[in-house]
């Protein structure tokens, strides 16, 4: 037996001091109550008889003293916190992963959600833990539910009790990595996963059981291969490893030496959900758009569902769609226009066919998992744009702009620019195009296109001029050059720019930039180094597309396909602000502060629905977010979980019922028992 508390020497001193005080107190006579009697001789007679047994009485007194010394000894020993050799004072280190993914919102046959059941299981597990065990609770998005390891079961239970399921899919790779990091170097490491097992298998297979340490792990649970189970610890480990992975993966998660257990929850698997929902404007007519919807049936039966499209609060389409079992159905809604920006797709139970018998009520939920029965999309606002063209006359330019019916073109002579620039209404133009004219100064705000700029007023420094250039290096990833082919454009001559800090080179003629763009805090600029009339560019389809792309880039609409965001992913939302942070308002009104970098708000998406990004100096931006994760929508519960070839088992029942190993507790119980004996014998006058 060893001591985890005070040392033996300290305990000896403590016992000597306490025992000494006890003996002194025992020797000191009690201050007795005085009682007046009329005839003490009678008492003398009685006591004389009693004193004949005084030896026995002295012995009883001694027994009482010994009893009290035993009490002190037990208390002092309890301070030492003794423990036996086979039961170490250090408890287990348990990482408890409670599945908070979206699929845990699914309702089971008894009407309870899977998460409620999982939480109950976690609660029971925590209640049965030894006082020496330390627990860290993780959610399936890899975030810790508590800042540190908790040894107080009640406290950890309270943390688990406050947890709620989220709208995000499980990210097991991140969870397992976090668990591996937390358990590294800890004694008696254990990992317990409580969930429905709706996880990506390749994420689970990222686990590496390690070398020799894996033996202990595999020994704690049965393995998949029966032959391996009988082949001993090392054999079981080797057999359980996937044969196809001879080399260690670089991104492997090291769980060597960690006991991993899995507690399954969930019993329903009927689910039909929207796995994709997007909307995009047509390139030619940005006032119209088309909607894309994908529905997947995860159940074992074919189903008919009613799909309802709602835009701006009004239903714009309702149809019944048949979805075969374990299959997908795609729906496209073309040429939609003239409705609000907020689009929502809803799945519901298809109305019964006339004459068909049904025992299902109308308002009955479609399936066990309601979260993916709704999807959201947002159409970026689009209004007619005004463009001011400062030119002496350029049909190619004006004609190309007029091709887009959403663009209203205004034209002035270069001589009138000074007056126009002084007019505050200049800020209302989406862009100003300087065609062969370069003003000395530019307004502080606005978007400007320069065609063949010249002189010192050029926004991009002109290094010289080149004859018959070709666009040899083209920045195709830039939105301005999307869907544009300019590699074979013939140009008579062009100015060559010198790129400055922050300048974007869009196209160059053998490292001589001839097309540039720049993004400033309050301005955006684009410049062509050549007069389009001295090239065949206006003869090409690329020319109007280039102009429209530029105008879109100015407007911040650099993605023609405005995809909805997916929960559980890192969202990078375009948001022009001078501030370093912005606020994301979630559908339920909760606010999340997020950092802004390079014109984008970066935040981890948590909720399904419409979100708003707010900043102090910027018009709010709205986005839509969906679960859109077929793995998460497949709510089929997994009673068994295989992790890197090893089947996980439930925590052994013995560990749940393990008695507290703290000996000091039993010592205190012994003290209590002895006190009761002393009290009983004293009150019955046995030891007095």
């Amino acid at each position, binding site marked *: 037996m060893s001591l985890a508390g005070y040392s033996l020497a300290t305990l000896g001193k403590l016992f000597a001091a306490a025992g000494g005080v006890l003996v002194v107190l025992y020797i000191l006579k*009690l201050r*007795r*109550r*005085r*009682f*007046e*009697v*009329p*005839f*003490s*001789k*009678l*008492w*003398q*007679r*009685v*006591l004389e*008889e*009693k004193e004949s047994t005084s030896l026995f009485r002295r012995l009883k007194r001694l027994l009482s003293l010994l009893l009290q010394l035993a009490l002190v000894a037990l208390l002092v020993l309890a301070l030492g916190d003794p423990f036996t050799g086979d039961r170490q004072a250090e408890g287990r280190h348990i990482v408890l992963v409670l599945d908070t993914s979206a699929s845990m919102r699914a309702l089971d046959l008894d009407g309870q959600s899977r998460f409620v059941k999982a939480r109950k299981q976690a609660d029971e597990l925590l209640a049965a833990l030894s006082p020496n065990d330390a627990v860290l609770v993780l959610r399936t998005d890899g975030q810790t539910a508590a800042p540190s390891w908790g040894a107080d079961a009640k406290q950890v239970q309270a943390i688990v009790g406050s947890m709620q399921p989220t709208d995000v899919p499980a990210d097991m790779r991140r969870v397992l990595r976090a668990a591996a990091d937390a358990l590294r170097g800890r004694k008696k490491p254990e990992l317990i996963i409580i969930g429905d097992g709706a996880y990506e298998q390749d994420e689970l297979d990222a686990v590496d059981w390690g070398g020799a340490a894996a033996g202990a792990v595999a020994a704690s649970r049965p393995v998949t291969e029966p032959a391996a189970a009988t082949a001993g610890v090392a054999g079981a480990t080797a057999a359980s490893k996937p044969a196809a992975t001879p080399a260690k993966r670089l991104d492997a998660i090291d769980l060597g030496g960690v006991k991993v257990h899995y507690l399954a929850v969930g019993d329903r698997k009927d689910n039909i959900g929207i796995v994709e929902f997007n909307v995009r404007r047509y390139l030619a007519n940005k006032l119209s758009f088309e909607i894309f919807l994908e529905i997947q049936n995860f159940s074992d039966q074919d189903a008919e569902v009613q799909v309802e499209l709602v835009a701006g609060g009004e239903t714009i389409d309702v149809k019944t769609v048949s979805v075969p079992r374990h299959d997908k159905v795609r729906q496209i809604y073309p040429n939609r226009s003239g409705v609000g920006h907020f689009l929502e797709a809803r799945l519901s139970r298809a109305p019964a066919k006339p004459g068909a018998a049904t025992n299902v009520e109308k308002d009955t939920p479609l399936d066990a998992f309601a979260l993916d029965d709704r999807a959201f999309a947002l159409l970026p606002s689009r209004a007619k744009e005004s463009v001011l063209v400062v030119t002496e006359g350029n049909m190619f330019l004006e004609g190309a702009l007029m091709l887009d019916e959403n663009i209203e073109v205004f034209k002035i002579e270069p001589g009138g620019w000074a007056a126009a620039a002084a007019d505050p209404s200049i800020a209302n133009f989406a862009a100003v195009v300087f065609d062969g004219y370069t003003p000395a100064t530019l307004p502080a705000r606005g978007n400007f296109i320069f065609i063949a700029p010249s002189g010192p007023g050029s926004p991009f420094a002109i290094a010289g001029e080149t004859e018959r250039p070709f666009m040899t290096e083209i920045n195709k990833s830039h939105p301005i050059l999307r869907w544009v082919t300019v590699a074979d454009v013939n140009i008579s001559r062009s100015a060559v720019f010198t790129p400055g800090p922050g300048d974007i080179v869009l196209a160059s003629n053998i490292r001589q930039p001839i097309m540039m763009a720049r993004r400033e805090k309050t301005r955006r600029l684009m410049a062509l180094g050549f007069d389009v009339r001295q090239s065949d560019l206006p003869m090409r389809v690329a020319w109007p597309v280039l102009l429209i792309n530029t105008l879109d880039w100015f407007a911040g609409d650099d993605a023609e396909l405005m995809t909805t965001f997916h929960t559980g992913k890192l969202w990078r939302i375009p948001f022009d602000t001078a501030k370093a942070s912005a606020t994301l308002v979630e559908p339920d009104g909760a606010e999340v502060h997020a950092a802004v970098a390079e014109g984008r708000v970066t935040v981890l998406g948590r909720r399904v629905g419409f979100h708003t990004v707010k900043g102090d100096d910027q018009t709010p931006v709205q986005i839509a977010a969906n679960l859109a994760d077929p793995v998460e929508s497949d709510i089929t519960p997994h009673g068994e979980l295989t992790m890197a070839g090893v089947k996980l088992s439930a925590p052994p029942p013995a560990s749940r019922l393990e008695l507290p190993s703290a000996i000091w507790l039993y010592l205190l119980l012994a003290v209590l028992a002895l006190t009761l004996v002393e009290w009983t014998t004293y009150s019955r*006058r046995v030891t*007095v």
Partner: protein
Amino acid sequence: MLARAEKAGKRQLFDDEFLKKLEYLYIVSKKVFAGRIRAERRTRKVGAGIEFADHRKYSAGDDFRYIDWNIYGRLDRLLLRLFEEQEDLHIYILLDASVSMRIGDPVKLDYASKIAAALCYIGLANLDRVSIIPFSAQLHREQLPSARGKARIFKVFDFLSGIEPEGQTSLEASLKTFVAQTKRRGMAVVISDFYDPKGYEEGLNFLRYNKFEPFVVQIYDEKEVNPPLSGDLTLVDCETGELREVTVSARLLQKYREAHETFCNELDEFCTKRAMPFFRTHTGRPFDELVLSIFRAGGFLK
């Protein structure tokens, strides 16, 4: 009477109600011994009376007039005729006024005083001579001299109310002094708890040996038999001041009760064997009940 006692700072023991009870007891005593003639209670003293009592042998110097010549004629023996001497009966109430008598609820001394008053009243009413002698280690200086006639009862009340308990009990010393100081023999009623460390035997025997008619009344309090004690205590003897440490348990209390019972039985046996009327009572018993039992037992009323 109460007002007078209050003025004197004495105990208030006797009121009109008490007096009524005494009168009732007197009537009862008359019924018990109906037909007896007043003032004819006699002592056992043999002397110059009229009524024949006994014979004894003649010895030189005896008065020839009392020789029974008829006997001499028939038996040829000289025997002297003895006559009961008629005189007033003396009743001495010896009242224990030691410190141990102040214990009890009601206080033993108060209870004893009531018994003494009742017996006095009966005696006075029968025209006997009654005196009260308090004692503890010795006879108290304050004594009620011999009195006669019912009218003296108030003096008795007054005297009894003024007795203060003091000193240890010493029956032997007190009764020896009493015998030495009292020439006229008579009934000696000893009212006490008999808690005498030296014992009661010598004192009572001394009364007997000196031709007194001892009449023993033992008084105790219920709490003396069943003391409300438990735990570790220091017992203090109220008379001697002697200290005794004791841890009282239920078993010890039982032994004490047995010891007390033995003590009382020993006193009872001692008196019975010596033909001394003995009465034991606790203070919870109505005093008139005890007085009636004394009457019924006989001896006090002749």
